[in-house]
């Protein structure tokens, strides 16, 4: 039992949860989207600076649980500098990581393997289905922002 909890709340996650990176609202952001989890009341704003199809900056604000905050924080770290297509591929791959068994992961185009290795720490949520939304919330919002929507669809 405690093993699984440790699996979910790895040190990296606790750290990102307490000290989120890129927790700010960049002046020059040109895209933003809201991510909201009505069940627990988590709410994030994701800010992007997109230029020539590249995510030049990405940051977030808001409040949420350790999982969602850590995931948002890590998302900003790995997405920065990626092209839109790369960012979306990362999103899809990360989504698989949180929801599917390894052998079911789809092919979403070339992804930054190093980034995915970093994100592996989040895979513990698979054992906590109700927390999957926490882990993917900021990612959904980031994806929505890239697509020009102002919020991640709740479902």
């Amino acid at each position, binding site marked *: 039992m405690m093993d699984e909890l440790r699996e979910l709340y790895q040190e990296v996650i606790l750290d990102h949860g307490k000290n989120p990176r890129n927790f700010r609202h960049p002046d020059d952001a040109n895209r933003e989207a809201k991510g*909201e989890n*009505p069940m*627990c009341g988590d709410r994030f704003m994701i800010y992007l600076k997109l230029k020539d199809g590249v995510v030049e900056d990405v940051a977030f604000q808001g409040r949420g649980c350790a999982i969602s905050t850590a995931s948002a924080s890590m998302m900003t770290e790995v997405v920065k500098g990626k092209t839109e297509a790369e960012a979306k591929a990362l999103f899809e791959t990360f989504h698989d990581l949180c929801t599917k068994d390894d052998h079911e992961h789809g092919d979403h185009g070339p992804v930054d393997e190093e980034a995915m290795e970093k994100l592996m720490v989040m895979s513990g949520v698979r054992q906590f*289905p*109700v*927390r999957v939304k926490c882990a993917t919330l900021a990612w959904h919002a980031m994806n929505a922002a890239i697509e020009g929507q102002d919020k991640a*669809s*709740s*479902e």
Partner: protein
Amino acid sequence: MDTQIADPTLITYDVERVRADFPVLSRTVHDKKGKPGKPLVYLDSAASAQKPRQVIDAMTRFLEEDYSNIHRGVHFLSQTATDQFEAVRGKVARFLNAPSERNIVFTRSATEAVNLVAHSYGRAFLSEGDEVIVSIMEHHANIVPWQLLQADKGVRIKVVPVDDRGVLDLDAYADLLSDRTKLVAITHCSNVLGTVTPAKEIARLAHERGVPVLFDGSQAAVHGVVDVQNIDADFYVMTGHKLYGPTGTGVLYGKYDLLKKMPPYQGGGDMIESVSFEGTTFKLPPARFEAGTPAITEVIGLGAALDYIESLGREAIAAHEHDLLRYATEKLSQVEGVRIIGTAPGKGPILSFTVEGVHPHDVGTIVDQYGVAVRVGRHCAEPLSERFGVGPTARASFALYNTRAEADALVSSVIAVKEFFGA
């Protein structure tokens, strides 16, 4: 009758084994001072079907082991209850061949499902002078909600007639369709006549004019395979308790683009995204239409009921019921003075009748003394009973657990009625 007995589907359908699944069917009624009365002959499944042990057990098991409120909890029971509840949405979707479980809204009953559409879709998209087409053989559940909308919004109700057999007059329907038509709401199977309506054709004609169609599948879903995509229904409603499932459950199927543009129906927990006194935002369907704590245990039971139906096979059930209908119709017609109301070809296993010189209410009381449970009255379809000029009728309806012997019991009890009244 020999040819029917030789029908392979009938041979494999073991009705006695099926009956053993239904505890109530072994009871007697009108017991007196400890002496058993008459064995129950339950021919009122069109009003509500009995429940197999599988359904009762599923509810009991859920309540004893996994019960919790759903959707809002991170704790173990809440998760497992939510998973089991949502799995039934998928089962219902497969049962109706809906494209996805997000087309499935849980309601209290078929009645509530029609009211939901009238309230949400009707009040948002229909206005004064717009027309809703129904048929003369609708159940009150598919009449009164439109009348309430009529009182509220000034819409008009147009009524498709039936012929003397009870067959829907498709030409008249086509003539009623006009630019003013904004919705068609027609039963898929009449609860009095048994008539099965040509759903696909009804939808096709309406869609030619861009008009959405709601089908009341309360009876149809029980007696055959329904494919909402094949008939191209825009809305389809059914009710759990007639499907051998628990009371308190109903289903609204809706095309997703329609559901998505509909405003909320009731307000409360679970259907909102965010609430503040400055402004509240709503979830996407189906959650948008499911305010408050749903009938959780009962939906679990409904899932078990659908599993049960599938385990017997919907086609096998339909064949069995059809055999009973044919058999009972033949026997009952031979009783002098009996008039059968509803003789449409391909009808469902519903047998409404009158006995000359005896009021149906008296028929009901007397056959009941023989253990035979039939419904008498207007069956919540008053305009129809006026149409046939018979007033109330008696109605026997056949389900997956009925037998030819029970049809015989019906017939002999009707003969007793006649003798009793000297009619």
